[in-house]
């Protein structure tokens, strides 16, 4: 079927929403509660548009497309309504962008920028203390817009079932279990809620102050822990040669989801404890040597012993922790150079 948005015609499929078609075609409509993974919510009302033949403004995230539908996203009426929604959102929290970790990567900031809102018209809410109790996640209640994405994600995406809405009306807030501090709750710090949060209400604690999004280089890779092979993006501070944050990529097999190790266990390459230089044991002590010396010595010892006792006294361990290329290299060395099949790895252990 075909629909028209702002006088441009687009192809659409049964079951899609107006917002989805707009997103697919790079037409920006402010929206905060919808996320592909958490689905329709119809909560934030920021995505209102006019649709020919329908009375009043419609939330584009909940309206299913129909053939021939005509949508307008840029009338004064639409803009006015969107502006009011975003303004009230800004007014009912403390959305200070200056040192917010989300600055430059915040969907509320994007909406305010798009609508030309410089500052909130009112200041309605008192400041609340942030929950900084957990090891990896900061919950800044002043920045929460109650979109519910974190709750939906926690309960239906990763199904850890920790987050929920507590209290009612303007007092509504996101709570952990029976309103516990995050550290005391059943939370396993998988960080899905942080990844889904459109604003600065849920923040990776370790990344605070480590770099603005535009200063960090993004490198896609595979997680180094278990065998699920989650796809993730490293946020790299090149100047300091450090990974400062990890996010999940929304592709197979993990669709953005990670666990506590994959998301937060990323500093080990930069650890001071790393082995940095080749070493040879001399008089019972490991001494730093050049690669040249270490390789010459190792080759000499392998040759001596194999020449004396045959190739089968040589054994090599590959590893379930290293790349395919390195395993293949060890395998080929063992078989083609030493000429034994004594190569194995930790699959048995």
């Amino acid at each position, binding site marked *: 079927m075909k629909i028209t948005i702002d006088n441009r015609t687009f192809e659409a499929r049964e079951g899609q929403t107006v917002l989805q078609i707009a997103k697919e075609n790079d037409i920006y409509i402010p929206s905060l509660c919808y996320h592909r993974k958490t689905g329709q919510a119809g909560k934030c009302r920021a995505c209102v548009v006019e649709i020919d033949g329908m009375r009043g403004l419609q939330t584009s995230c909940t309206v299913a497309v129909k053939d021939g539908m005509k949508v307008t996203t840029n009338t004064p009426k639409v803009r006015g309504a969107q502006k009011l929604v975003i303004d009230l959102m800004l007014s009912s929290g403390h959305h200070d962008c200056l040192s917010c970790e989300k600055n430059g990567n915040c969907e509320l900031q994007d909406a305010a920028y798009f609508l030309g809102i410089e500052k909130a018209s009112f200041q309605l809410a008192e400041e609340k203390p942030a929950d900084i109790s957990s*090891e*990896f996640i900061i919950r800044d209640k002043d920045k929460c817009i109650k979109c519910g994405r974190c709750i939906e994600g926690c309960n*239906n*995406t990763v*199904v850890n079932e920790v987050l929920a809405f507590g209290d009612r009306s303007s007092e509504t807030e996101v709570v952990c279990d029976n309103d516990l501090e995050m550290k005391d709750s*059943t939370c*396993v710090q998988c960080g899905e809620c942080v990844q889904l949060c459109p604003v600065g209400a849920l923040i990776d604690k370790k990344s605070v102050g480590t770099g603005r999004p535009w200063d960090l280089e993004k490198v896609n890779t595979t*997680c180094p822990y*278990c*065998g*699920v092979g989650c796809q993730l993006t490293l946020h790299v501070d090149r100047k300091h040669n*450090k990974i400062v944050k990890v996010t999940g990529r929304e592709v*197979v*097999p993990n669709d953005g*989801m990670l666990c*506590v*190790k*994959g998301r937060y*266990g990323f*500093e*080990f*390459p930069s650890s001071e*404890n*790393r*082995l940095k*230089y*080749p070493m040879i044991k001399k008089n019972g002590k*490991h001494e730093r040597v050049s690669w040249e010396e270490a390789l010459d010595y*190792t080759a000499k010892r392998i*040759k001596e012993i194999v020449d004396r*006792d045959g190739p*089968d006294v*040589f*054994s*090599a*361990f*590959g*590893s*379930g*922790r*290293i*790349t*395919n290329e390195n395993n*293949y*290299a*060890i*395998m*080929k*060395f063992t078989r*083609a*150079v*030493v000429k*034994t099949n*004594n*190569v*194995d*790895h*930790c699959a*048995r*252990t």
Partner: protein
Amino acid sequence: MTNSIGELQDAKTIFVIGSNTTEAHPVISYYIKRAVKKGATLIVNDPRRIDLVNWASLHIRHRVGTDIAYLNGIINEIFAQGWEDKEFLKNNTENPDLIRESVKDYTPEKASQICGVPAKTIKKVAKILAKNGTASVCYTLGITEHICGTDNVKTIANLQMVLGNMGKYAGGVNPLRGQNNVQGACDMGALPNVYHCYQAVDNPQVVEKFEKAWGVKGLSNKPGYKMPTMLRKALDGGTKILYCVGDNTVQSEPNMAHTIKELEALEFFVACDIFPTITTPYAHVIFPDTAWGEEDGTFTNSERRVQRVRAALKAPGEARSHWWVMQELAKRLGYDLGFTSSEAVWEDLRKTATSYAGITFNRIEEVGLQWPCPTLEHPGTAFLHKGGNFARGKGLFFKTNYVQQAEPPDKEYPLILSTGRRLWHYHTATQTRNSIGLENIFPEELLEISEDDAKKLGIKSGDLVKASSRRGEITLKAWVTRRSAPGVCWCSFHFYEACGNALTIDAFDPVTETAEYKACAIKVEKVKDGDGLPEGKVEWRQARP
């Protein structure tokens, strides 16, 4: 895995056995729990009350190491009720009579005596498996780390073939692989009996193929030693050189004291790693390797998906990629391996690969491909044995029988120790303890012990206890928890200061030589009273006190 991870969320029945999924494979557990939310029936079979039980319809707490008796009891009941997939048995298996015959002795009542699960529960499980739609079986090391690990796996395969659950979407036999690239290490031929893509070393045609491709003569056609044999032979002079890459052998092999003796007996020991470990002190030469995040290449995940890893950081000091080390050593021994980059290594292996031949770095730039992927046009394979057509032709049943654990508990060592992994750490914890924060959440190893046993021994959570076996002892705090079944203690091997492998037994499965990490006999004594553990304010907190 015969099937793909994402399929789990659509499964009708999920049968998890010997897998602490929420801790060891958290992201897979998300898919399992999603299936439960959509109405799937989850059966968790584990002596421990693991966290996944909170989402399960049934928790079967069979005795440690009695999987064969339990599973054969289920198969017996399936046949008794006529619930087997008769079409599948007739068309897709070679010897259906053998399985019918071989489970005859395992009536639910008899199985019950061995595994401790009431006969009527075994019957109930059989009914769910037979009647609730396609079941996916997921298992991990709780199945393989026994002296009967191979037969445990065969029994699971028997069950799934009897039910006709092979070659189906959201079915299959799914070992959840524990390490980021343990699948890849196997696929790459870091195994004593095969080259990469499982090409057998004792097949003359294979040997000829590799001699030609690699330009060498005299490749050995004799399968090599498996890891435990390599180590054991150090003591009788059969192994003189151990070239060890990315393996903290002292901490990860069973019976630590014995492993140290084996390493000490080596004439030449090379350890290549990213951190000093409790293994590196025994090395004559240490090579500093590049870590994850510092080099390009690929890992293969549990569902056979080959995925890119990329360099984001500069390696510290003079750490180098291991393919470079191999290239340099080979050069000194008169052979040019031809390795100039990770991708060059990849292209070299692709020349002689079969199931990997169609996978190039370019093709997996965005998303990985699942092998078999034999040609550049092949889209990869989501699940194996489609339509019940097995790689070998027809499915083959194996007769399996229950065997007692190598070291059953006795008067002197009355408790069973099972070991494994925690959510917050990984293996020998060189990575997780060198990252920030994980150690704050879980700072030291705890011995999980049941309320019954703790009461008998006068132990409270937080008390310092000594756990000892015939091979060693460790001192650590106790965690009195309903996670543990009476008679069974549990700890991990993450912390070298109190490592489960100081106690575990070096008894091995005869086929795979996988050690019985999941069962040895220990005793526990209180050393001194403690101040309790920082417990959560909820009835249960996942994965910690």
